[in-house]
């Protein structure tokens, strides 16, 4: 049996892919992440609120998601210590606007900076990239910058803003700030309509057939075309099981789905494993990525999972035609981006700034001893922070990132999400793109 080792680059860092080949097809694969930074250890014995400043620094591309998961975990500690935390609608809406800005920017950045150039390269192996060169790259970079500027009106800065505190948000915008945010968002919407989608948001979000998307020339239809040309409408299929533990405007409560059957989910069935890691065995281990399972089974998280549990029409049609192939996975991020733009516009138009931004907990944090869990639907899927605090000092801080769900390593008889998607492929070029179809974040995977 042949074994090959490759480096997967440009995934917010890199990972090593070790592949076992049988009859020139991938029989088994291991994805190895090396750069562990020890954030959970650094947080131990520090004051609880320091986590609000430390955890955004888990990840440069989803720092707001970590801040939000952290504050929810802290609020959950207060709740478990018999104190009711009240979040005004204003605070909830502002949290969602800032989180949406992060997701919208992420999806635009990923599609234009990662998916399109990777597809160009597959089309033409001598392709040398478009970063800092091609007009379309600058247009996308500008859209990303504007999206985050809109969010920063509320979060102060991106990345690494600290705009949340237990009981609400720290900002207290005036109505003209909100109008400014609406104006900036319109620029992002114009970019997405003209360059990404080729349709107005209203038209696009009403689609329920893959055929409709192809009717207009756009960055999206070119990407779909190219993916189909290289068989990514059939490749990259995984378990067809999805999980969305955090809340969203697209569905109610925590949900899971097997194929198209959607059922309630409960975080209590989540378990984390150190199998195959250097933590468990410094000599036999081969990665710093932990694994997360739900009732011992691997589930895919992320935009595709969210669209599947929300029964979103267009993605359901892609899924009916192509199952959970790489094409459907990529498509789900773009479709989510469109819905997020509509939702964020709606939130800004209806934001009531008269309420208090924050209602602080009454209990002094130095007297707080409890455990708590915070869940957020981050750009790449369900993000979990779990804290154990003793008299305001962190005893244990545990983070399960979305990429741990998708990119951890399973066993030969129980393949992880990415492993299942890789088995059966006949080339490393395809494997490289399939891994990237999960929108890998290397730094999150090994915090």
């Amino acid at each position, binding site marked *: 049996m042949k074994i090959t080792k490759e480096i997967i680059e440009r995934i917010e860092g890199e990972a090593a892919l070790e592949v076992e080949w049988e009859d020139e097809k991938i029989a088994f694969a291991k994805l190895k992440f090396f750069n562990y930074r020890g954030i959970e250890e650094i947080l131990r014995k520090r004051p609880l*609120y320091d986590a609000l400043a430390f955890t955004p620094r888990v990840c440069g591309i989803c720092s707001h998601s970590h801040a939000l998961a952290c504050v929810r975990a802290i609020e959950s500690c207060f709740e478990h210590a018999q104190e009711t935390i009240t979040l005004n609608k204003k605070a909830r809406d502002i949290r969602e606007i800032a989180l949406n800005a992060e997701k919208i920017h992420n999806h635009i950045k990923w599609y234009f900076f990662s998916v399109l150039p990777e597809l160009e390269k597959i089309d033409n192996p001598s392709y040398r990239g478009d970063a800092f060169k091609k007009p379309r790259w600058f247009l996308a970079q500008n859209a990303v910058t504007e999206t985050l500027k809109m969010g920063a009106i509320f979060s*102060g800065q991106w990345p690494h803003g600290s705009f949340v505190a237990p009981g609400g948000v720290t900002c207290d915008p005036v109505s003209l700030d909100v109008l400014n945010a609406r104006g900036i968002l319109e620029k992002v919407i114009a970019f997405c309509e003209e360059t990404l989608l080729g349709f107005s948001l209203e038209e696009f979000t009403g689609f329920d057939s893959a055929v409709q998307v192809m009717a207009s020339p756009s960055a999206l239809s070119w990407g779909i075309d190219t993916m189909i040309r290289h068989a990514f409408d059939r490749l990259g299929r995984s378990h067809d099981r999805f999980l969305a533990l955090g809340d969203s405007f697209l569905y109610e409560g925590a949900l899971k789905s097997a194929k198209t059957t959607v059922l309630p989910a409960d975080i209590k069935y989540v378990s984390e494993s150190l199998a195959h890691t250097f933590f468990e065995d410094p000599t036999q281990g081969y990665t710093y990525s932990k694994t997360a399972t739900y009732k011992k089974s691997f589930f895919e998280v992320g935009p595709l999972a969210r669209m599947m549990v929300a029964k979103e029409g267009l993605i359901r049609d892609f899924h009916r035609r192509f199952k959970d192939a790489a094409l459907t996975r990529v498509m789900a991020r773009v479709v989510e981006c469109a819905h997020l733009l509509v939702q964020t516009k709606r939130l800004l138009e209806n934001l009531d700034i008269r309420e208090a931004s*924050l209602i602080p907990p009454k209990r002094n944090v130095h007297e707080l001893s409890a455990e708590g869990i915070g869940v957020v639907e981050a750009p790449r899927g369900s993000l979990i922070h779990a804290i154990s605090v003793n008299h305001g000092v962190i005893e244990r801080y545990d983070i399960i990132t979305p990429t741990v769900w998708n990119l951890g390593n399973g066993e030969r008889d129980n393949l992880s999400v990415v492993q299942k998607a890789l088995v059966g492929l006949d080339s490393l070029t395809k494997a490289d793109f399939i891994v990237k179809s999960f929108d890998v974040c290397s730094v999150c995977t090994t915090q």
Partner: protein
Amino acid sequence: MKANTKSTVIWIQGITCNGNSHSFLNYSNMALFAASFEMLYHPLLFTAHTLESLLDKPEAFDFLIVEGAFTKEARYLQRFGRSFPEILEPLANKARFIVCVGSCASFGGMFRLRDPRRISGALFNAKEKGGYWDEKSNVVNIPGCPAHPRWIAETMMALRERKTVLLDEFLRPKEIFAYLAHHGCLRNEYFEWKVDCKQLGEKEGCMFYEHGCLGPNTHANCNKILWNDISSKTRAGSPCLGCTEFDFPRRALYETHKNMSLPQTPYGIGKRAYYTLAGVAKSFKIERLEKKLIDEDH
């Protein structure tokens, strides 16, 4: 250098969260930057070269940008099967300038806390001289967690055009870091009259007294040039965390560290001067500053 020749840039990463890369990608005049610089390699983007090809045949180039903390320990950091020194040193020897972006590359930053003896900045380990290197004459530090995109792009442009870039004792460009985060803060008047911010989430009050704001002790022009061209931590009601300083992150960031119930004095202001003035200011009750900024009764 001929005016029409682009300066070449290689961007590499130590122990990092990628925050400086993503901050840099928010630069609002990116086409202008691209007219003067050619990015030979950036780890997150599709660029013309691979890191391995650049390492195999290192040639002279202009800017080595390093993001993330430095370490010689392969167990803390390896990329492409190479330890950090195996990536850094061949390139550092060929670079005209080495620009450390972010507090991790400058001082060690947050990730230094895991092993402060073996993880550091390029030339500093927190405030101590001697980080990864003891000396190197072509290093500029642009700390911040993250660094502001304008700090990175404009410093590079000034260096490229051979403009004088004055550096402070921590090798930070003075035109950026001679300012304090306090300068331009919308809550300055509350600071002058010692009106405390009662709780977070309001426009009124200063966060220096109870909420740990380090604005008056932190070198950075955040409130002059603003983040994402629009806001800042303090404008969004959140205390300055002191992220451009060698001691970032301090312990208990959301609490004001006090001595005999007095906060530390602002940077460069003596205790006698500050506490005398503070005492006088505090003895007056300024009614306007006790009210909401926008009074709905009038």
